[in-house]
């Protein structure tokens, strides 16, 4: 069913609703002292309208609004669009019949180099986004004109492994929250961009940093740390949105005496990595938040950390109020190929089945019962050579001969994975799961190195085969029930763009050559593309303002917004 969302939902704050108070009172006054009344009431109406506009323009993004984000499809209130991680827009003004007409409406330049990985939010006609080097900006969603801009003063000794990136903000009340490369969490005033509070969570010089968009649940701002390349001890933190006080911390590596600690050899747990650098999802029905974790450190060398290395490369079900672990599921045990499980854990309801679907970096598509963490199926969706067998519970397990060797061992997928952090999407209309797949194998060669605080800690190296070996990528539409491929759109080369699906029967993605592309969600046929001039390294989103739908995506150092002519 297609929601005709353009009619429903909240009106823009610049449109005066039909039933505004001034109109009603004016009717009640009748004919007495008509002229005086008219003047008075016009004034009163204007004042009332002004008050209403003021009230609306300072409309709070309440926790309830976040819970009910599907009721306001014109807005994009969190990183993945909703708590389920669907990255789906119920807007259908842009659809199969008119997608070919899309044109760029405006562009916003961050003027920064490097990768622009952010997804902006849209809240009542204002876009809140982040760019490289922890830039934060609020833009008029109609024109792209900046309202305020903020940039974190980053110290010189930060340790971003893979670019000075930031994937976005979260919002609650009149604050937007950003997690920064110097491992700070910062609350900014949503009207001015002024700092309301700022907390330092960990020592950035030792390799702790943030790159993800925070997740707000109730009154808490939840973040997961990056730094799996530096031998950190990973954690997920929750901060009081009002004050910045830390409410809980969940270490993704259990300490002495905690269950799972025995999965680490000796002292390796202290520097075992297991970051949590992708925004989680949330199931209000069971009050459970789902987070995913990254590789154990050193990322490509298992020697010295014998064991499964919990909770690296895992799905974690946490109580958002306390940070207590309800259950866990580990995708890749004792990983030696950098197969971070940091892909958005997507919540899908299939009849009575409450599921988490994840297309994992290790090349398998997993279906997990989200009420108890039980694995239901694991099906490869890309070329896999690291695992050729499954254990008693159906988990793919790594082959011994897939380990890195001194001479180099070719393993698929390569270290960048069969997919990576770029968001997948689940379309409740087509009931398909769309994911960016990368077909690239790497040679893994040992390069042992001692741990040194703040230094890269890989333990081995990986690089593409130097024989002629074409790498390629595709957008794949999977039937989540079976993991089977429904269709694929072949990219010219592997891409780092995520995917958005919409009620208009479309999926949007981008490619490494700079195209933003709209495809028929049912068939994978390309309906429209636009050349942005530099690689798309982000996941698209959609919003509507003044009754017009737009699609926004970052490419190069520019945020592009497209709409109908």
């Amino acid at each position, binding site marked *: 069913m297609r929601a005709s969302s353009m009619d429903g939902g909240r009106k823009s704050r610049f449109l005066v609703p039909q039933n505004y108070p001034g109109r009603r009172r004016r009717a009640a006054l009748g004919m007495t002292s008509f002229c005086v009344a008219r003047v008075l009431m016009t004034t009163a109406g204007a004042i009332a309208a002004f008050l209403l506009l003021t009230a609306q323009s300072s409309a709070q993004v309440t926790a309830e609004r976040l819970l009910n984000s599907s009721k306001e499809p014109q807005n994009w209130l969190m990183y993945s669009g909703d708590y389920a991680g669907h990255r789906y827009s119920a807007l259908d003004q842009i659809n199969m019949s008119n997608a070919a007409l899309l044109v760029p409406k405006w562009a916003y330049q961050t003027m920064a180099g*490097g*990768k622009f990985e952010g997804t902006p939010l849209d809240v009542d006609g204002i876009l809140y986004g982040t760019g490289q080097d922890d830039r934060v900006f609020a833009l008029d969603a109609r024109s792209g004109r900046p309202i305020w801009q903020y940039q974190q003063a980053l*110290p*010189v000794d*930060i*340790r*971003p*492994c*893979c*670019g*000075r990136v930031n994937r976005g903000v979260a919002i609650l009340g009149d604050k937007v929250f950003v997690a920064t490369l110097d491992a700070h969490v910062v609350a900014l005033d949503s009207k001015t961009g002024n700092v309301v509070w700022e907390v330092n969570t960990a020592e950035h010089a030792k390799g702790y940093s943030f790159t993800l968009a925070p997740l707000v649940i109730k009154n808490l701002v939840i973040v997961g740390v990056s730094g799996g*390349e530096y031998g950190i001890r990973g954690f997920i933190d929750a901060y009081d949105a009002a004050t910045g006080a830390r409410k809980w911390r969940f270490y993704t590596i259990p300490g002495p005496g905690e269950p799972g600690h025995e999965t680490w050899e000796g002292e390796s747990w202290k520097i075992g990595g297991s970051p949590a650098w992708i925004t989680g999802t949330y199931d209000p029905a069971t009050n459970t938040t789902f987070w995913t974790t990254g590789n154990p450190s050193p990322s490509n060398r298992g020697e010295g950390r014998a064991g499964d290395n919990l909770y690296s490369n895992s799905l974690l079900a946490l109580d958002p109020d306390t940070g207590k672990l309800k259950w866990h599921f580990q995708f890749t045990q004792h990983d030696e190929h950098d197969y971070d499980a940091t892909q958005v854990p997507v919540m899908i309801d299939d009849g009575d089945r409450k599921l988490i679907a994840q297309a994992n970096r290790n090349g398998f598509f997993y279906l997990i019962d989200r009420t108890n963490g039980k694995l239901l199926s694991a099906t490869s969706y890309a070329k896999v050579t690291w695992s050729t067998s499954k254990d008693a519970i159906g988990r793919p397990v790594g082959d011994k001969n897939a380990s890195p060797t001194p*001479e*180099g061992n070719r393993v698929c997928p390569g270290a*960048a994975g069969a997919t990576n952090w770029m968001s997948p999407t689940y379309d409740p209309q087509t009931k398909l799961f769309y994911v960016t797949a990368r077909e690239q194998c790497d*040679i893994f*060669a*040992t*390069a*042992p*190195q001692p741990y040194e605080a703040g*230094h*890269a800690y*890989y333990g*081995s*190296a*990986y*690089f*593409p*085969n*130097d*024989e*002629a*070996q*074409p*790498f390629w990528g595709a957008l794949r539409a999977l039937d989540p029930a079976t993991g089977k491929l429904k269709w694929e759109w*072949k*990219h*010219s*080369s*592997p891409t780092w763009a995520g995917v958005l699906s919409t009620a208009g029967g479309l999926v949007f993605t981008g*490619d*490494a*050559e*700079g*195209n933003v*592309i709209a495809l028929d969600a049912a068939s994978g046929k*390309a309906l429209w*593309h636009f*050349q942005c001039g*530099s*690689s798309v*390294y982000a996941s698209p989103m959609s919003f509507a303002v003044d009754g017009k739908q737009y699609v926004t995506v970052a490419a*190069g150092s520019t945020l592009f917004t497209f709409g109908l002519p």
Partner: protein
Amino acid sequence: MPNFSQLRHFMQRDSRTFPRRCGLVAAALLVLWVGAPGLLAQEKNPYAGDAKVAKLGEYQFRSNCAFCHGLGAKGGGRGPDLTRAQKHHGNTDAEIFHNIHDGIAGTAMPAATNGGIGVGMSDEEIWQVVTYLRSVEKKATAAETGDAARGKELFYGNNAACATCHMVNGKGGRLGPDLTTTGSSRSVDYLADSVRSPSKRLAVGLSEPLKDFAQEYETVTVITADATLYQGVILNEDSFTVQMLDRSERLHSFEKAKLRSFQKSRESLMPTYDVKLLPEKDLKDLIAFLLAASSQGGAK
């Protein structure tokens, strides 16, 4: 740029507890701050010839450099062979250090600093890599491999006819890669292999910013809507368009959807120069020419 007040704060705080150490650290920091350009211009490798450091450098190289330059520094899909004594962007320790530290403008070589593509290497680690590179360096002179002057005749003459498609120092054709610097960026074995089996590794062409992998000189055959056939090499391509050079060195750009036919092949347009077509001696002379051409002012 260091924050001076932080530095001062650091000095004051530590001077009470560890005065001597603080003095040293502060002095070091001041050197870092004031004398940064001086330090970067450091010219001598402090570890030159140290085999242990070379081993550490090998691991650093694997972690940070091998992605492009290949295992053993023998050249990868897009990075040159670094075992060549003659390096295109400089042969001295200081030049190699600088190239790793700051990257090479106009090439895909990034700076080894945080926020670049790599994870960042300290100066010490860069010197380890320099030490490693010196330990795997192989000298190959034109004189050892063959007769460069005869190679030049072969290259530009009608027998091998390399110049039909390849250019050296501004003279020759455009359909294949310019070979001016190839002699200093690829090993003799690699060059021989490329002549004998040209389709084994296609040359790497355009590398777009932020894109992981460069375009290659793939062979393309298109038939346009009006039934004209063009064959040549792909200069660039995306999902919707292709930019190519045809056999007559004419540039074309096509929208794929408007073509009657579009076919790509990883069979190179270059003929396979087997021993019949190019005897072993000719091959050696040809390579000698490429080596000489790539040295400073060579073979002009």
